[in-house]
């Protein structure tokens, strides 16, 4: 029964991943990250993503402040950074919003920047929530799969 649960969770995880790919939230670079995780580096994906979340939140806070100050040049620099790290983890939609946002800064289009910032915050939050969901399923699956073996031995 527990084994069955692990399989269901595995299916849930894949379904979520497929959904995120289909929606363009993630791209194949995310798969590349997963391929870099192995026994030698078993928590690689979560480590990188935690760094990404930490950096991104700082960037977003800074961007809001810079927009208030109308410092478009510095905003561009921050956006380059945000764009780079987002594309490195496969966060496609966030990357695309950064590109549009950067274009608005080059035009010193304040209204456009404000809209882009809101969209960026929205996309980032959505991404973070979905990735946390993914991790939760993965953790549950690992837990359930781990419990399975002692129970099987007892039944023998």
């Amino acid at each position: 029964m527990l084994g069955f649960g692990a399989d269901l969770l595995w299916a849930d995880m894949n379904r979520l991943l497929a959904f995120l790919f289909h929606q363009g939230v993630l791209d194949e670079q995310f798969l590349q990250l997963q391929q870099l995780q192995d026994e030698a580096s078993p928590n690689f994906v979560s480590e990188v993503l935690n760094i990404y979340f930490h950096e991104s939140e700082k960037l977003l806070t800074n961007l809001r402040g810079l927009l208030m100050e109308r410092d478009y040049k510095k905003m561009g620099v921050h956006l380059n950074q945000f764009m780079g790290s987002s594309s490195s983890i496969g966060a496609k939609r966030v990357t695309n919003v950064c590109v549009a946002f950067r274009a608005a800064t080059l035009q010193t289009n304040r209204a456009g920047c404000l809209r882009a910032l809101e969209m960026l915050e929205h996309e980032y939050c959505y991404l973070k929530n979905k990735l946390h969901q993914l991790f939760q399923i993965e953790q549950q699956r690992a837990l359930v799969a781990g419990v399975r073996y002692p129970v099987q031995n007892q039944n023998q």
Partner: protein
Amino acid sequence: MDTNGVVSFDVSPEDSHEVHVLAVDDSLVDRKVIERLLKISACKVTAVDSGIRALQFLGLDEQRRASESDSFVPSLKVDLIITDYCMPEMTGYELLKKIKESTTFREIPVVIMSSENILPRIDRCLEEGAEDFIVKPVKLSDVKRLKGYMTPREVRERSQERTSVEGSGGGVEINNKRKLEEQEISDVSSSPPSISTLSSSPSDSSPSPSPSSSPTSSPSVLASPIRRLKMSSSTTD
């Protein structure tokens, strides 16, 4: 995992068969990724967060005079330098120039990474002596291609044992700067014959299918689709 420092490096004793790469990137996320990509490809990695730190590691920083630099030997020999282009204070291009100006280090292949596929930028880097230019995000296939630029004999022999070639053979050179191919280079495919003869000829002792270039720089010069394009057609635009 190195969280508070800006440099992470392997302290294992020097193994002459393992390739040592110096990775330079101001983004922590990218450093982590490139580090893992390189390690999983059996490379030793030293990752630094700026061009200045890279030069310090090599012993080329301003505190040292040229004569001192010549006698300075970094604790680990560097076989390849891979650097991001856009960095504060010193860009990857500026770092490239400094390395190529140094008599001690100019032979080390330098690869530039950038999230932007800007042709003039790529040209400038290649003209300054960059071995290759990778458009980010960096993938495992990019790193595998890079291994061909490094310490010839050991890597050739090792890649012969490891079937890591994945059908690339002479075709790997054609896949250089893959993103550029998507843009405009259509006559790259007309050049394969010259590439495959180049990659098969330099092998002396090891008849390796690996596309790694010989110690001289000319095969990789011709192998670069950018250079081929410039030599074969006089105009692009």
